[in-house]
């Protein structure tokens, strides 16, 4: 318990510097990822909304995330590192997109 408190105290100073995380949405329709959201920062969440009849995924090439997206479902991933992340649907390789995450 003491250890946990100490851990919480050690982490606490970092928190005020981080802006509140936001959720950005990417809509999947007709076998395409919709426009990539802008202004995504580390710690933000990206939500993929699958409007297709087909199961898709948002699978990062660098393995940062791998979100399964059954028909009609929404799936999310937290962007944990800064940089440009290329991703694709693991089932339909021609479906590709990228997200730019700033620190």
């Amino acid at each position: 318990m003491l250890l946990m408190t100490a851990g919480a105290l050690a982490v606490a100073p970092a928190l005020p510097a981080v802006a509140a995380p936001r959720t950005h949405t990417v809509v999947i329709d007709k076998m395409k990822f919709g426009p990539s959201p802008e202004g995504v920062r580390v710690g933000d969440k990206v939500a993929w909304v699958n409007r297709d009849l087909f199961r898709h995924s948002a699978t990062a090439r660098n393995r940062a995330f791998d979100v399964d997206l059954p028909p009609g479902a929404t799936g999310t991933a937290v962007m944990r590192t800064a940089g440009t992340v290329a991703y694709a649907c693991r089932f339909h390789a021609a479906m590709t997109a990228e997200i730019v995450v700033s620190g």
Partner: protein
Amino acid sequence: MSKALLLAGVLIFAPLAPAMAQNAGPSDPQIAHIAYTAGQLDIEAAKQALQKSTNPEVRAFAETMERDHAAVNEQAIALVTRLHVTPEANPTSTSLTDAAAATRQRLAGLSGAAFDKAYVDNEVAYHRTVNEALRKTLIPDADNAELKSLLQTGLELFQQHQAHAEHLAHDFP
């Protein structure tokens, strides 16, 4: 991939074009039957691959074929039910079915890498043929806007299946 095999695949499906060229073009009930049949045949091919293949990439492809074509056909059934259209068998859907039965029988006698190659090569030829029929005949000739739209969605999807199959085919020279 073998050109001979690809050619064989194209020839098997060649009846698709003449059957439709004989009259003004297929009716909506016929188009619905052709599209549904094409999907079901690919689902059956996928099931055969899942029974016989141990190659992870081939199996993943077959699982995608089974799932995607089932999703489209589910929509097709919902649509024709709502429109009170009864899909109508026709020479094109019959020739597709006959060709698929022959392919299934041929593939049943293969195993291992030989089966994988034959399945993938046939998937390339099959999707090329069906996509061309969708582009040139089925979509232009469909009268009902919802049917046309579903066929267009199907084409978007099947073009990606074709690309996926072509990509896999490179692994089986």
